[in-house]
């Protein structure tokens, strides 16, 4: 844990600027969400006017902070370095002598303006985020009814308007392509043979855990013709033995199975 005991190490190094805030930082090091968060922290801590940031001071502290991060072997994200470059750029702009024309427009050309604008806006959203996060969360502080009405439970498969997001669609395609290797597209012969008896046992054990099983689920792990056919034959056999009942929500809806004798252990 590098964060735990940085103090004595830092003393050796004797970084003058770190003296003041090493204690606090060593605690919060991992908590900064990014360069903007860190800058706001530095401004607040030094009680600086955000509209009139002394760039020299803030840049120095910022760079010292990055040094500290490196010292503690924390990964310094590239984003922090981008901000460091921005600060140095602003500082160098301030050092450059202004020509006469520019002097007239000095106020408008304050090199800090853009940074301040970004900081203020970021601060606003950070606070908005905290307000949102402080709300009672569904599933954490607030709950809805989870016991379905008997009438509702029976109508689970009613086909109505669609409820699916674009991300679901893309993700389904991505998962599909990952799951099915290219060479399998035309190859339907499976390497090992699958017995109907194994399949029956699989389905029965699934039905002991749950009340209903969907056909699609049974074949979802292994999308081969053989698997589908064996699963289908297994279900026909289970049906013949009156161990399962088959339901279909609507004419072309998903096919569901329920154990015909609920909860009863299957006799061998």
């Amino acid at each position: 844990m590098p964060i735990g005991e940085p103090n004595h190490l830092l003393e050796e190094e004797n970084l003058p600027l770190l003296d003041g805030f090493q204690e606090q930082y060593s605690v919060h090091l991992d908590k900064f969400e990014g360069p903007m968060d860190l800058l706001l922290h530095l401004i607040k801590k030094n009680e600086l006017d955000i509209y009139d940031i002394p760039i020299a001071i803030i840049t120095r502290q910022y760079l010292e902070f990055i040094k500290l991060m490196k010292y503690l072997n924390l990964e310094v994200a590239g984003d922090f370095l981008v901000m460091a470059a921005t600060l140095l750029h602003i500082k160098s702009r301030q050092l450059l002598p202004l020509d006469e024309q520019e002097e007239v427009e000095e106020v408008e050309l304050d090199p800090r303006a853009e940074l301040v604008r970004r900081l203020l806006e970021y601060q606003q959203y950070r606070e908005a985020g905290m307000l949102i996060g402080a709300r009672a969360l569904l599933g954490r502080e607030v709950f809805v009814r989870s016991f379905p009405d008997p009438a509702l439970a029976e109508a689970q498969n009613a086909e109505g308007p669609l409820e699916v997001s674009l991300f679901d669609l893309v993700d389904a395609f991505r998962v599909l392509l990952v799951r099915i290797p290219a060479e399998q597209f035309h190859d339907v012969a499976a390497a090992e043979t699958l017995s109907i008896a194994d399949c029956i046992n699989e389905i029965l054990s699934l039905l002991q855990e749950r009340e209903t099983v969907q056909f699609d689920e049974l074949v979802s792990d292994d999308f081969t013709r053989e698997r589908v056919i064996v699963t289908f034959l297994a279900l026909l056999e289970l049906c013949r033995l009156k161990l399962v009942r088959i339901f279909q929500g609507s004419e072309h809806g998903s096919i569901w199975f329920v154990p015909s004798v609920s909860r009863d252990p299957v006799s061998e």
Partner: protein
Amino acid sequence: MSSDLSAIIESLLFTADSALSTDRICELLYEFDKNAVTAALAELAEYHSGRGGGFDLIEVAGGWQFRSRPTFHSYITRHIRAKASKFSQSSLETLAIIAYRQPVTRTDVEHLRGVDCGTVLKSLLEKKLVRIMGKKDIPGRPLIYGTSKEFLETFGLKDLKSLPTLKEIQALDEAPQYERQEELPLEQNMRKPLEGDLPFA
């Protein structure tokens, strides 16, 4: 005090996924007196049956449960019939293949998914998400499928070009690209602030 207990019991029963027995409730609310819990339960049941609302607190199979009044079942089932359906994974996969690979034949889709897609395809056609675009000029002249206008509407897309590509989704996982970070407009392209806009006096 007692009303607080009632409200707590109500919240427990309301969120439970099955009926809760009096014993179980007492167990959960260990800091309350068992008799008080039993009394509160009876009171609650009486209160809800007395107010004549849409649901009652009733004792079933040794437990307590909120249940809708049977009188209103004809209204309740109206909603159930028109309930939004969750898309099954197989429908979603089939739709994704058609969306990204269109125009495709049924055989194309089945090659990719490894299973028969006739039923799923038919249901997608019925939902009008998928349409028949014509016949392919190969032996057997199989039907070719593509997505419909309703598909775009359902997903809020302006056109098929607005469909996010796999690359774009995968790009979310990639390392940041710094070159995209906007250059701070410190120089000439700074816009002029309005009077008194920026407080650098």
